[in-house]
């Protein structure tokens, strides 16, 4: 598969994970017995989406990122790799851990247990914040490649 397709797919899956987390957050604010099963199902969907996105991103990063890295480091924005990419690739591991924990936290009775609901909302907020920053960092990395190529 084309590396560019992989690159775009990982962004799409990351954004879907972010949107799913925000959707779940709102659902959980209005939780009841009626939507509890939907919340549990959606928490699994968010986790699976992130896992697929992570696998796609990892495949691209390991096999296709090296030329981009070389362009960035020789260009005017070397920090796009040395700070933004390095931070992103390690912080998203925490994102993977959080989405893996999400379906576990969803097994509690969120409709009747305030403590479980608070925990679930906390995990969702962390997922949304990290996914948002990962998306932004990805934009800086993309710009790092662009200005690197334009400066040649």
């Amino acid at each position, binding site marked *: 598969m084309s590396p560019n397709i992989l690159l775009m797919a990982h962004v799409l899956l990351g954004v879907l994970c972010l949107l799913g987390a925000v959707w779940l957050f709102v659902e959980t604010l209005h939780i009841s017995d009626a939507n509890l099963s939907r919340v549990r199902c959606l928490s699994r969907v968010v986790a699976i989406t992130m896992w697929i996105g992570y696998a796609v991103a*990892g495949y691209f990063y390991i096999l296709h990122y090296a030329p981009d890295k070389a362009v960035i480091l020789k260009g005017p924005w070397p920090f796009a790799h040395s700070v933004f990419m390095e931070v992103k690739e390690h912080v998203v591991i925490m994102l993977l851990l959080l989405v893996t924990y999400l379906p576990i936290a969803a097994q509690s009775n969120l409709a009747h247990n305030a403590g479980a*609901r*608070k925990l679930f909302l906390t995990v969702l907020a962390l997922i949304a914040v990290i996914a948002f920053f990962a998306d932004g960092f990805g934009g800086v990395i993309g710009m790092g490649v662009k200005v690197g190529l334009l400066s040649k």
Partner: protein
Amino acid sequence: MEPTSQTESTEGLSKCTVSFGISLAVACIFNALLVVLKEKSPATMAWMKKTSGHHWATHTLLSLLVFIILGLILNKTNNGNSSKSDSKSLPSLIVSSVAIGAAIILGFYLFID
């Protein structure tokens, strides 16, 4: 936040939620410390590259293993009951560990590496 249910339970969190919540917090800190270790220790970096073919893949696997194995151990050793205080302290523990982990990683690449 106004749940539509009429009754609110005062019970704590499930055994599994607490066990894996604690292991999540530990794994986040482990992940950050492993960044510092591998970047500062060429031997560790070489071992991580050799193990899976790429240091980042090994890093991911090790962090996941810490999360899963510690979670299973805590789940087994936990007597099955969590206190009400668990449901208050666990969100703070997870937020703190994620914030500290992110700060270690960001601080390392901004100021040290």
